[in-house]
């Protein structure tokens, strides 16, 4: 009887503890998108977004500068796709609304989202035909939308070594640096430019070097690399209201 009583006491104490744990788990349900290590186009860590882009024929256009600051943890070349969303492009296809290029360490690429009949920003002007300048052309009508930049690398959160890409990363201790093929290692800047007065409205980039959010540490103490616009349960993330 004594043992039974002790046993029941322990069982009920355990039950009491379980009650508190399970209730705590239900308080909020933050986005839980993927398990660590999952890759693919739907993984938000591959994206940088900008909320607004605009074209008014010959009156305003959108300019974006994409730079590779050549930091120690960045791959020497990072491929991106810059895409104008919700705008009517020429041609109005997935390839027409996007431009694909690789940014090498220390270089800056320019992207113009501009109407196809723009008097100066066009492919007949030698100032806009070099390999680091890219035009996404829209129809000659007022356009507005947003910008999405997708990293070509499919595993942005996992460092690569000589085994994954050619070349050692450190001359003294071979292959000792962890480098990431991650769009959040690039820095981006842009403006909706008004031709009439030479002024503009600065763009905002979410998920680039400035605004990327580190994955934080999960309850299992696994810590993640910076991953663009990551939304993950148990991690630091975008999209959780006013602090």
């Amino acid at each position, binding site marked *: 009887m004594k043992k039974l009583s002790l046993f029941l006491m322990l069982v009920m104490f355990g039950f009491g503890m379980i009650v508190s744990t399970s*209730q705590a788990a239900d308080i909020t349900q933050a986005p839980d998108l993927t398990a660590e290590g999952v890759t693919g186009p739907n993984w938000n860590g591959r994206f940088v977004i900008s909320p*607004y882009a605009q074209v008014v024929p010959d009156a305003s256009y959108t300019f974006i500068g994409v730079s590779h600051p050549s930091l120690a943890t960045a791959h020497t070349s990072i491929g991106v796709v810059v895409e104008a969303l919700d705008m009517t492009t020429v041609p109005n296809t997935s390839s027409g609304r996007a431009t694909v290029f690789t940014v090498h360490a220390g270089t800056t690429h320019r992207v113009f989202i501009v109407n196809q009949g723009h008097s100066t920003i066009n492919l007949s002007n030698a100032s806009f035909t070099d390999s680091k300048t890219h035009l996404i052309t829209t129809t000659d009508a007022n356009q507005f939308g947003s910008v999405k930049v997708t990293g070509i690398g499919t595993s942005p959160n996992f460092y690569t070594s000589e085994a994954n890409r050619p070349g050692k990363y450190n001359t003294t201790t071979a292959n000792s640096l962890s480098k990431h093929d991650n769009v959040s290692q690039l820095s981006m800047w842009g403006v909706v430019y008004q031709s009439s007065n030479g002024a503009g409205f600065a763009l905002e980039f979410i998920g680039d070097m400035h605004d990327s959010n580190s994955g934080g540490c999960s309850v299992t103490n696994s810590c993640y690399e910076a991953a663009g616009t990551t939304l993950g349960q148990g991690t630091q993330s*975008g*999209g959780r*209201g*006013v*602090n």
Partner: protein
Amino acid sequence: MKNKHLKRFFYSVAITAFLALVAGNAFAANQNIKRDGAKTTFESQANSNDFIVVSPYWQVDSGSYTFIAVTHSSLSGMASQIGITINAIDNAKAAYTTAESFTIQAGNTQRVFIIPTNHASINSTSISSAVFLAGTSDFTHGHVRVNPIASHPNMKWAAGKLNNFSTTGAGFRDATMLTYWGSVIIEAQTTGFAMEFIGDMNDSHSASTMAGVGYTASGVNLQ
């Protein structure tokens, strides 16, 4: 002796019940209705911090208006449609006009103009696809507040079902997962001053390792 054990047994039941009740109360205290939503239904409230986006300043007068773009960036985890209610509150704590509600589809951008009444060029006739908040023609200023339309933005939604954790198509109908961008436009020079949005995809921040109540995020970009 038997009675003694029986007494101990009942004591243990009483203590366990007490523990469970205490745990329940602690949970209730953690569930801050003004931050997370209702205790039992998890329904977000009009002032639940976790689901609100605010912008500190808007302005209209005879030579200026306010422009806001709201974009659904179609990221993984977002419901394909997210509805919001946008309210321009003036400095007298009153609504500038009736709040506007709309739904944004994945990949789309919705423009919102806060304008003086009877604006000659920025109005619903000239820009039919935009949303307008027009109150008076006088100089007015205040702040913007955005609330979700969904009653449970904190729970995944798919195929008309709440708490659906389907791996395809499930997402949160959460206003804070949208991106916002805007300016106070000075019409004479077509220039402006960038707005700031707190709580949107760019600025919001979960307190990742702060499990207990009484902690809050603070300081510059805790990363």
